[in-house]
């Protein structure tokens, strides 16, 4: 096997000699053989092992086509769901809330940015702090996030001050609320007013999450 490049070896020389000893090829015979082989291939539509591009589509069983289609649809749905979840999570991370501080004698909500452990992708609850500043014996928060229940969310007063506060996990979006100060309906003077055509009692508006 120690052949140098460009020099035929002994095996090649023997093969060339054997080919030279064969009778000359009849060109017409070769053409006839090739033509008949082509006709036979055209008539025979069954798959062959040596086909480079076997025509299997027409012969594929119907259940296989259905299964392929179902797999493709499932893949598209999974991809779409993944994209949707990714967008949801990104939106939750991007939650930006502003902080305001109440002045003496007024009530104002303090919005704080949500922390990841308190949020789930679906509910997207954002811890939101409400502050009331004023003299009172009892202050409660009512709103569409706590069933308007005046017993559900009492505010706690900071020792030695007139500040009352509570933090509530709230879904992102627009919410209406008010304080019940010693059982008296009290709107937040620093928050936008929510008109109430149904009952004629205005409340306050809070937007939780991104605008």
């Amino acid at each position: 096997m120690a052949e140098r490049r460009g020099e035929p070896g002994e095996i090649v020389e023997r093969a060339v000699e054997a080919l030279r000893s064969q009778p000359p090829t009849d060109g017409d015979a070769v053409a006839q053989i090739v033509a008949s082989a082509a006709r036979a291939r055209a008539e025979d539509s069954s798959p062959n092992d040596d086909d480079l591009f076997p025509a299997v589509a027409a012969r594929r069983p119907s259940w296989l086509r259905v299964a392929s289609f179902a797999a493709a649809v499932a893949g598209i749905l999974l991809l779409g769901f993944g994209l949707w979840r990714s967008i949801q999570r990104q939106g939750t991370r991007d939650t930006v809330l502003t902080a305001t501080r109440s002045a003496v004698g007024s009530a104002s909500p303090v919005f704080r940015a949500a922390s990841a452990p308190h949020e789930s992708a679906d509910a997207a609850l954002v811890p939101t702090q409400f502050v009331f500043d004023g003299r009172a014996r009892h202050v409660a928060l009512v709103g569409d996030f706590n069933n308007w229940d005046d017993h559900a969310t009492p505010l706690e007063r900071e020792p030695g001050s007139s500040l009352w506060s509570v933090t509530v996990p709230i879904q992102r979006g627009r919410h209406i609320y008010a304080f019940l100060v010693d059982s008296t309906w009290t709107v937040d003077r620093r928050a936008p007013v929510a008109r109430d055509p149904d009952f004629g009692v205005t409340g306050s508006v809070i937007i939780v999450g991104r605008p």
Partner: protein
Amino acid sequence: MRSRLPLAVVAVAIPVALSAQDTARLGSRLDSATQTVVLRTVESARTRGLPVEPLVDKALEGATKRATGARIQAAVSALLRRLELARDALAPNPGPRDIAAGADALA
């Protein structure tokens, strides 16, 4: 026939369970006549494929604001109409929160 029995039980049980949830949420904060009307309105919304949470919320809001039973019933019925308008306006596939926001905008 026997295989359809569980489906029928589930079909009956789910609305009953949901209705019980609404009743529990309303609790004793409405008088019985108002609660009956509100629950009927809520059930009507559910059968039309509308969100029912805003209706229960509206009734509770009215109770906290010490509105009369008649006013609460009127407010809940008006909200049902707004929800339906919002759903139609936001067709073809609005979510419950979209419909509720649309109804608020129509108030």
